[in-house]
């Protein structure tokens, strides 16, 4: 008697030992665990969010210069106001460059959205079109292993209105970093330029970039000396 389809199916199920189904699952689990253990700290995100944090970075800030519009301005008061503006804006520029060049979770994944929050709406539209100049670049994750910040400087000129209140600040930036390529060579990243910042009406976030003029002049370089900078990669 030939068994029907139902009978054939049920007889086959009975012939597969339970162990043969469990073993592959266990092996897969072990494999994943080994991978996580061995590669987890190296920046190769296997299961989301595995990028190392950005290296600590702060610009060196020169004393701010006040540019008064009142004929008989109190220079000491104006200088104090200009310094206050510099203190308010410096973290914004620190974050801008950290997000644009140093944070692996941005440059490894071509995710520079945070960079453009520093810009006023009109300027942001142009900045986004200039991504390759204002950030490490869309393909940086394919090319670089690590990016280390170098000596970078900010200087400020602050335009004060006739009442002595800050109106516009121009930040002159020189940013330097060294990026190690996956092929073992090094690139010196140099971003230099000016950012105009103003307090945009209706925006409570504070200072925003309203105009900019930035150059990128990268060049080949040698591996940095061990004490020259802080590494962006714990394993480097």
């Amino acid at each position, binding site marked *: 008697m030939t068994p029907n389809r139902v009978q054939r199916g049920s007889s086959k199920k009975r012939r597969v030992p339970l162990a043969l189904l469990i073993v592959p699952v266990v092996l897969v689990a072990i494999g994943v665990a080994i991978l996580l253990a061995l590669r987890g700290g190296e920046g190769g995100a296997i299961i989301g969010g595995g990028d190392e944090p950005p290296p600590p970075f702060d610009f060196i800030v020169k004393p701010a210069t006040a*540019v008064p519009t009142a004929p008989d301005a109190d220079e000491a008061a104006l200088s104090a106001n200009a310094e206050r503006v510099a203190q308010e804006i410096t973290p914004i520029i620190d974050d801008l460059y950290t997000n644009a060049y140093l944070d692996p979770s941005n440059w490894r994944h071509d995710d520079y959205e945070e960079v453009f929050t520093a810009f006023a709406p009109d300027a942001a539209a*142009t900045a986004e079109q*200039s991504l390759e100049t204002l950030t490490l*670049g869309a393909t940086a994750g394919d090319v670089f292993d690590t990016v280390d910040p170098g000596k970078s400087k900010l200087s400020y000129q602050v335009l004060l209105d006739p009442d002595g209140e800050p109106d516009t600040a121009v930040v002159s930036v020189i940013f330097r970093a060294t990026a190690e*390529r996956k092929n073992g060579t090094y690139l010196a990243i140099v971003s230099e330029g000016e950012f105009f910042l103003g307090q945009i009406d209706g925006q409570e976030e504070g200072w925003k970039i309203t105009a900019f*003029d930035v150059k990128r002049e990268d060049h080949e370089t040698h591996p940095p000396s061990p004490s020259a900078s802080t590494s962006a990669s714990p394993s480097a």
Partner: protein
Amino acid sequence: MSVLPARRRAALLVALVAAWVAGSALGAIQPARRASAAPLFQLEPAHAEYVPVLDGTKPIYILIIGSDARPDQAVESQRADSIHILSINPAEHRAAIVGIPRDSYVEIPGVGQNKINTALFYGGPDLVVQTVEQLTDLKMDYWAMTGFASFEQMVDDVDGLVVDVPFAMNDEASRAFFDPGVQRLDGDNALAFARNRHDLPAGDFGRSENQGRLMVAALAQLKKEFNKDPARMLIWAASFVRNGTTTLALDEVLDLAFTGTAVNANKVENVVFPGGTAMVGGLSVVTLNQETLQKISKDLADDGLLRKANVPPSPNEPLLGG
């Protein structure tokens, strides 16, 4: 198609999974070799720029008034030595300058017929604006004014103006002593250049053109300095606000300054309303050529620009060599 026995199929599955796991683990232990074929990612020098220039289609008219107030006098209550309409077409990043001779005999609202320069004395810059608006039918958006001392200071604040002096000047009254050619004028010399009329063939007409020439020079210099060092913009804006009197707010000054950096100064038309001289009640006055005045005013009203066909001859033409 042959069917493998269930045990053999299960064994094959286990073998495949084991191979995958082993391969993955091995890959993790021995990192992939450095990608020698990775792109070098050598950026060429690159540049990113955003300048918030005005781009509206409506022309902007600014009346620029030079008061003859001396250092100890209030600029608002003297006479206007120079009167110019600065007309800007933001969309096209172009501009025109039209000088109105100070002795132009015109109707001053509430005062009657008189020299246009007295409007400042009778009613301050607002009355000058009303007079010019009535004369040209152009609505001034803003006015800005300087006096002798503040003009000098403004020029000195930007380290002088580079001016192409078009012809030799030798005028004792204004102390304008210049050889022709490109030179940097400090505040004192820029004022002398702006005031000289005695050795010009058309007197105040030629002087008004030279005053416009200083404005064009300032525009060219602002652009040049901004391109070299954008922060210079603040020095210019601050000097303008500090030394001038104006209805422009500081942010509007910056907006116009940014817009000015996009204007090609070489293409700015610098003209003077033409006319002749006459005596009225013992006064030597300028009678404007009404036909040309109307033509220029209507042309400016259109888009803020002046067509070549409506550009009158330079009052300094005899000295310009053609």
